[in-house]
């Protein structure tokens, strides 16, 4: 069962990045919309260590408006970027808002 549905607004968590994560720094703390659901795959945090039978999580394709990612984005306001996250990296944007954004 996936935690998020298509259309949900999600914020990328800023989790510790001690080892391999595949979650880009430029997405962390930013909010986008789930546009695609993927089956459960081994998360890169385990796969990177050869633990192919490691933790499996649903993945989500998230679409960001470029102005959300880059406050001084100089292109068109309609421009977007899509990229993927495992479930652990996402939280509901509403929950994130009530918790307050960490600086």
């Amino acid at each position, binding site marked *: 069962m996936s935690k998020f549905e298509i259309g949900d607004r999600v914020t990328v968590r800023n989790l510790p990045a001690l080892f391999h994560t595949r979650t880009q720094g430029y997405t962390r703390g930013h909010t986008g919309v789930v546009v695609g659901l993927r089956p459960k795959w081994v998360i890169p945090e385990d796969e990177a260590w050869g633990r192919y039978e490691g933790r499996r999580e649903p993945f989500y394709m998230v679409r960001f408006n470029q102005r959300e990612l880059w406050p001084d984005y100089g*292109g*068109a306001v309609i421009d977007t970027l*899509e990229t*993927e996250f495992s479930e652990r990296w996402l939280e509901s944007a509403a929950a994130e808002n009530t918790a307050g954004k960490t600086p």
Partner: protein
Amino acid sequence: MNTSHQHTDAHTPIEGRDEAIEFEILETAVRELSIAKGLFSAEDHRRFMEWYDNIGPTGGARVVARAWVDPQFKQRLLADGVAACKELGIDWMAPTGHGTPSDFTWLVACENTPKLHNVIVCTLCSCYPRPLLGHSPAWYERPNYRRRVVRWPRQVLAEFGLIIPPDVEIRVHDSNQKTRYIVLPMRPSDTEGWSEEKLATIVTRDTMIGVAVPRIDWTTTSTPSGQARAE
């Protein structure tokens, strides 16, 4: 493109690295151990590399051309890219059972429309739809493209000579996980009546990365010098 050696003075020594980097040493060690253990032979390895180096973007062009002439195939391609490729004999799992050295789980065809232009990148490394396009171009692997196209896509596309009007959304696809992408460009309007085979000739590599759009005067066999002579 690293062609500087060809254009400098012929007597200038070519600068090379004397020492192998760690990954080269690791690759050599694993390969030689595998051969010694009988997992595969040196010739098997050579054949794989020869095959792999020769994949090229022809498969991608065939997929795009089929999608242009067959709306039902296009729908299947948009729904399940890996399955649609297999219809054309392009098996993402071949020949190893787990594909080429480009791990993947999903293929998404990103359809360009009059209001949407797609471009692909991998900011983490150089993830690329290899079964469809072969090796990625050198610039695709360089940090310059990877870090800038997510940040300034319009400027980077303009550097490739592609100006996208401001009322057309640019959507960057960053292949950070296991989804791979191919851009499904728009069919040029002046190609009515063209056969699928002829259409495939204008679907060049860069049009499927999204840094160019197909043009009827630029085919997979066009040469820049030929164009210059024609002018």
